[in-house]
């Protein structure tokens, strides 16, 4: 017994050693072939309930790669737009390896392991859902492969202290701060009274976390939170919740709701013939085009936060040009997810280029040292620069209001396409 186990042990050591040498050799081999490709694994829900989102993400990520691999002089100073491939890697091209998470955390993790071990990708990008990104991050962490997260917005992703995870987009806490920055300016510049705030949220990770942040920020900034209602989605009725909120008499309601909930909220408010001065929703209300298809004009005057909005493309040359390219591919405009995905690819490619080699640690260091300016991004950010937790600290966003059945940027006031309507008119005067 003893002898066998010792032999087994030795065998194990040898295999592990060989594997270790193998992975140590890998970057060197890749580097030995100038002009070869850089492999990036992209993880998105390509089938299942979120397949449509996955498909849009696929178009966006491919466009990002196309901008890097091709020559788009008119897109300068967007990173790597003006030259072909990655110049510091001998013009190497990015090659995408796709994996379908099916919207499921366990599948996402298994696919990430496959991409890393079998497909030997140099970096990962994805995965839209926070829950899937969380498990994929574990695989990235275990193998030491950089993971770029363009859009998943749960604050916990960057609070867990992952070494290999970098998020370019804002998290929900930052979105909450953004909402309050907006409210503050509405009070100051538009002289509206906002003191009492109510929160209405669904009760899983997304809603409950967003509700917690909203209450924390509201109290810190001196507002009084007069109601906080959590419900389970999809709800059969939200009458009880909204009756209580109305009874508390808030000036502003902040919602963290999914699409079906947003539709029900709209209908219930109409039935109650009540609308707060302002209703600001995290998501749900900006689910294009499903929300407006379902509620039509009743969606008017809801305000939502967005990482990006089509209106922004009219104010920003690069955003407009990239949107044009996206439109040519797909027939529809970029949205807040796809815009972040295109940008995510560019940030990742920029870091790999600066690393100058395909060594994972070098890429990680290059990501950590990313310095992009406001004029090098297609979103309303001050640039890209990661903090110690891997979160881009220069993010920003816009506030959008539904007016005449269209999403219009209403804040920041200097890039607004339409005048903010606050307080919203009552139902009988619409």
């Amino acid at each position, binding site marked *: 017994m003893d002898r066998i186990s010792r032999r087994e042990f030795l065998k194990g050591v040898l295999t592990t050693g060989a594997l270790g040498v193998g992975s140590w050799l890998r970057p060197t081999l890749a580097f030995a072939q100038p002009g070869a490709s850089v492999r990036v694994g992209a993880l998105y829900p390509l089938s299942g309930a979120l397949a449509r989102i996955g498909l849009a993400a696929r178009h966006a990520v491919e466009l990002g790669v196309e901008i890097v691999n091709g020559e788009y002089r008119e897109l300068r100073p967007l990173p790597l737009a003006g030259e072909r491939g990655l110049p510091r890697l001998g013009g190497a091209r990015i090659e995408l390896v796709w994996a379908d998470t099916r919207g499921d955390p366990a599948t996402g993790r298994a696919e990430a392991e496959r991409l890393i071990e079998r497909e030997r990708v140099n970096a990962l990008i994805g995965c839209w859902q926070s829950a899937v990104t969380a498990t994929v991050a574990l695989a990235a962490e275990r193998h030491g492969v950089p993971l770029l997260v363009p859009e998943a917005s749960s604050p916990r992703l960057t609070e867990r202290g992952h070494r290999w995870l970098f998020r370019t987009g804002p998290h929900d806490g930052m979105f909450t701060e953004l909402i309050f920055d907006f409210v503050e300016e509405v009070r100051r510049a538009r002289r509206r009274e906002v003191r009492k705030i109510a929160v209405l949220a669904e009760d899983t990770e997304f809603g409950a976390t967003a509700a917690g942040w909203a209450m924390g920020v509201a109290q810190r900034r001196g507002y009084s939170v007069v109601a906080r209602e959590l419900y389970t989605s999809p709800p*059969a009725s939200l009458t009880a*919740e909204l009756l209580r909120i109305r009874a508390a008499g808030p000036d502003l309601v902040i919602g963290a709701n999914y699409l079906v909930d947003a539709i029900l909220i709209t*209908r219930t408010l109409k039935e109650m013939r009540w609308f707060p001065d302002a209703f600001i929703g995290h998501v749900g209300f900006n689910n294009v085009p499903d929300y407006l298809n379902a509620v039509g004009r009743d969606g008017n005057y809801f305000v939502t936060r967005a990482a990006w909005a089509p209106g922004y493309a009219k104010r920003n040359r690069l955003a407009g040009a990239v949107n044009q390219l996206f439109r040519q591919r797909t027939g529809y405009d970029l949205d807040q997810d796809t815009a972040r995905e295109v940008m995510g690819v560019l940030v990742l490619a920029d870091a790999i280029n600066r690393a100058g080699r395909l060594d994972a640690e070098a890429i990680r260091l290059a990501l950590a040292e990313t310095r992009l300016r406001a004029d090098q991004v297609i979103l309303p950010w001050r640039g890209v620069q990661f903090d110690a937790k891997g979160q881009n600290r220069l993010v920003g966003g816009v506030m959008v209001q539904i007016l005449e059945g269209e999403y219009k940027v209403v804040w920041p006031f200097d890039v607004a396409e339409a005048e903010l309507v606050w307080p919203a008119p009552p139902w009988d005067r619409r």
Partner: protein
Amino acid sequence: MELVWHAAVSGAVLGLVYALVSLGLSLIWGVMDVVNLAHAEYLMLAMYATYWLWALGKVDPLAAVPVVVPVFFGFGWLTYQLLVRRIVRAPVAAQIFATFGLLFVLRYAAFAAFGPNVYGVWRLGEGTVSVLGVPVATSKAAAGVVSLAAFLGLSAFLRFTKAGKALQAAAQSREVALSLGIPVDRMYALSWGIGIASVALAGALLIPFYQVSPTIGDAFLLVAFASVVLGGFGRVDGALVGGLCIGLLENLLGTLLSPTLKLLFVFAVFVLMLLVRPQGLLGEPGR
């Protein structure tokens, strides 16, 4: 006080809709002791049917009722002939697995056909009516009225027509009914037809104020079960009483105490009922 009154009235209207959703579940359960776990999926499909009639054919959801309800009667009849017939006398576990499987088949068929998107009917200038001083959306009030009418109609059918009486006989004892020459098999198919037709009616009434997606059945299935248990297994009037109780309970306690806990109240009463009065509010002991 106004808050309580508002919550009570809208709870009662909601309860009438719950009742109509539960009616078919209760009927099928009562007649043949089969628990149809796929019940709420028929609701979802009927909502889609009504939605598409509205979106493509410009048919008002209320006007779609005469089309949707008979089609789903046929659908229910067919489900019985193709699937349920084979499991009527099978062990309970087999019945549960069969209808649970049916749930997935119907749900993912909807995913395949319509995608995961959410659809809703949107009508310009839809108004509200005042019900006992509380504004209620016209479509919701109409749903309440039609629901009541459906209950009255079904009760009359069961009590006064020959087919209705035969259905009750089949429910009481399969063997005795057979010996009296009642075509029990046809009665079972009839109960599936009526059961699915009534949940389709609920779907057509819901769509003007409730959105549809392939998983929307989840919002209603448990509530329907609770209604049936609360009112009394297999009783048509039980579904009405149960649905009303749950609508009221949910809205009143939700508004007064905490909406977060509203489903907890519903299921606390559900469990309490099973412990104290397992036959339900209207049921007779020993069934």
